């Protein structure tokens, strides 16, 4: 007997709900105003432009620190999301009752290196992270950030992270 796939609405509700719990629990993400777009398990992080993010007001250009923070947030959330995904889909993690308090701990950054390829323009920025290696204890992640053109990166980063201990 073939198992019927779950109704689409239920799947979306579960995934979006868990992503929201993951993101809403981090004050710094709210402070920067970062939002997330999800396509299946793929995340795109968006940094909507605001005056607070400007470094050099004469150009004006995004602050390098704001860009570094944006790429680091992208790496941490993408790593965490990848870790949660399986438990969420299998039902091991109850999506209906999840809160920031019941989520697994976030990965900890060991080191993070940012290449500033172009000046950050005063407009929205986007980023995606690729998990190069996800071991039990350590993970390596690379992140690409762009603005107007997907193929013209304005910044890229690589980082290493300590993964939280898995429950159970």
């Amino acid at each position: 007997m073939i198992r019927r796939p779950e109704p689409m609405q239920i799947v979306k509700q579960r995934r979006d709900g868990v992503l929201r719990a993951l993101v809403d629990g981090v004050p710094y993400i709210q402070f920067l105003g970062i939002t997330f777009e999800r396509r299946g398990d793929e995340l795109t992080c968006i940094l909507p432009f605001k005056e607070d993010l400007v470094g050099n007001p004469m150009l004006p250009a995004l602050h390098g620190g704001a860009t570094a923070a944006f790429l680091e947030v992208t790496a941490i959330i993408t790593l965490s999301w990848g870790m949660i995904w399986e438990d969420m889909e299998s039902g091991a993690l109850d999506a209906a009752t999840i809160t920031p308090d019941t989520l697994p701990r976030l990965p900890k950054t060991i080191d993070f290196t940012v290449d500033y390829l172009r000046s950050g323009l005063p407009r929205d920025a986007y980023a995606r992270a690729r998990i190069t290696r996800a071991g039990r204890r350590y993970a390596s992640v690379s992140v690409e950030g762009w603005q107007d053109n997907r193929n013209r990166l304005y910044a890229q980063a690589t980082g290493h992270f300590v993964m939280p201990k898995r429950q159970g």
Partner: protein
Amino acid sequence: MSDKIKSAGQFIQALPHALALGMELEELEAGTAQISMPYSDKIVGDPKTGVVHGGAVSALMDTCCGAAVMSHPSNPAGTATIDLRIEYLRAATPGQRITTRATCYHVTRSVAFVRATAVDEDETVPVAMATGTFTAGTGG
């Protein structure tokens, strides 16, 4: 304090993102800078522990390194980050102010080399260390 350093100081304290994080320039002299940032609930990265997000420490380090470059005797008015690597040695203690000191130890015609250390109120082990390169001259 020379006029050049004074104007660099004013410039750094007027950066919108630095203002948003409450950064304070404490010291600026030929090639070295010290900037601190208060603890605040809005920059927390781990809600379970109240530890500040690494990104906020990055922003502080980047600003401080840039300030050190701008105050270096051989360097012109502006600079931009080429590359910045940060190592997070330990979690900053929640509630404590973070202070960064950066030194620009060499400037060529186009590149400035900088190192920085960040501590909280316990200065025995740094919270983070950074190594960066910045544009100098008209190489930007």
